[in-house]
């Protein structure tokens, strides 16, 4: 196949794209985007996203760089509010409750929707204090069972056995993979409902990556997980459902949802040609 044949147009009409968004059969959805758009000033970064994310499953968001995956992810815990001059249209529902708008308690949203970032970012504190940081903000202390909260969070993140004898040593001394699992513990310590993961393993070696991927399979029994990843193979390995995003037009560069369905369907029988070209490595 020549390079010319490999090239595919990067534009796709929105109405065609939305036909490939498979509505979920189960009514048990944790999150729903309803005609959600996001703007940096006049630039429309996300266009009319509508999708439902099921409870206790792993949903992967894939797509080429700059298609709005992280922007979409950060909309779920209102992290984008921290960027100046942004505004949104449409709605995002968490457990049926609209989390977009002025009256929403953003701090509470961020407790319910935890986040893990690309690079492990432990605080320069002890392992214990890292995990206890969130609960302490909510007023917990040792008399309220803080030790148990820390134990549970480290256990859930499959880190307890490795750190139980050095809880009061600096978190910065841990390996990269351990630091990332510590960050997951820190997110879990405030008992969120949803965990957002933005490229959680891209800075890790293969063994540490594998540990994070296996951990996600355990965590989904308790939490709803949404992962953004450039690593398509990782999305295929870990997720139950996959959303494929791309920009609608090379000039406008608005990120749209092209196709959304079960991971098995997206990676074996995508309905959309752009999705097929992306997952088969023909563009992106």
């Amino acid at each position, binding site marked *: 196949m020549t390079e010319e044949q490999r090239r595919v147009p990067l534009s796709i009409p929105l109405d065609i794209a939305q036909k490939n968004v498979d509505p979920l059969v189960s009514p048990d959805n944790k999150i729903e985007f309803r005609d959600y758009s996001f703007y940096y000033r006049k630039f429309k970064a996300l266009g009319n996203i509508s999708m439902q994310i099921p409870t206790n499953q792993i949903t992967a968001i894939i797509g080429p760089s700059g298609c709005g995956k992280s922007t979409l992810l950060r909309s779920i815990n209102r992290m984008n509010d921290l960027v100046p001059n942004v505004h949104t249209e449409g709605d995002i529902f968490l457990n049926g409750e609209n989390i977009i708008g002025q009256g929403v308690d953003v701090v509470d949203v961020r407790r319910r929707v935890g986040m893990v970032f690309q690079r492990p970012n432990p605080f320069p504190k002890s392992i214990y204090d890292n995990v206890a940081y969130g609960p302490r903000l909510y007023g917990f202390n040792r008399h309220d069972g803080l030790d148990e909260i820390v134990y549970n969070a480290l256990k859930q993140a499959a880190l307890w056995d490795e750190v139980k004898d050095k809880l009061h040593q600096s978190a910065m001394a841990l390996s990269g993979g351990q630091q990332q699992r510590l960050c997951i513990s820190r997110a879990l310590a405030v008992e969120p409902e949803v965990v957002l993961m933005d490229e959680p393993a891209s800075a890790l070696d293969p063994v540490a990556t*594998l540990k994070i991927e296996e*951990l996600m399979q355990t965590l989904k029994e308790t939490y709803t997980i949404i992962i953004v990843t450039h690593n398509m*193979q990782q999305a295929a390995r870990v997720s139950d459902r996959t959303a494929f995003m791309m920009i609608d037009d090379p000039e406008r560069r608005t990120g749209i949802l092209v196709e959304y369905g079960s991971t*098995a369907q997206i990676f*074996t029988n995508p309905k959309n040609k752009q999705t097929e070209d992306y997952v088969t490595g023909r563009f992106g």
Partner: protein
Amino acid sequence: MARETFERQLQAMVDQVLVLGSMVEQAVLDSLDALKRRDLKAARRIFEGDYVINEKRYAIESGCVTLIATQQPMARDVRFLAAILEIITELERIADYAKGICKITQIISEEAIDPVLIDELQQMSNLALDMLRRALDAFVAGDADTAREIPKEDSKVDKLYNQIYRNLMEQMTKDISTVDRANHIMWAAHNLERMGDRVTNICERIVYVATGEMRELDTT
């Protein structure tokens, strides 16, 4: 914590292949039983029930394709999934032979069949099914040595087939009115003989999974 999820998924595939194997074995047993008892209802039921086996095969195939697409299997894992795709095809074909025997039962209807012939057909079936069971055990155990030995049993199945063939030819030569029925019995025997060949193919895949070598196995 080494790819535990994927390991579980692979084990689930093994379980499904064994379920398919037992469905196929039952179909062969039932088809011979229906032929022996000239039970036309049972023959019809087995014939019509073959689609369940086909659907099981498609479900396993689809599961394999999904694992190949999503789990990026390498080395032994990819050989294992490729082997399953081949093994389930062979199993489904064995079930088709059982279906073919049921069709013959319906055609022959209540005409008499020489009990010696029936006994020889039963022996062929027993041998072929024994090979199949052992092959599936070897598949589960990843036992290449056993898989190399099993095809040697096929010569016993072939020997019985040749014996039936000669007897039927003799019968047809003596009495031309038996040609139709003898021809059908010969087809039933041929189906049983082919089962042994299919099991040999399964054994080749078991060796392939274990060693990476893809070659025909010696059946003598």
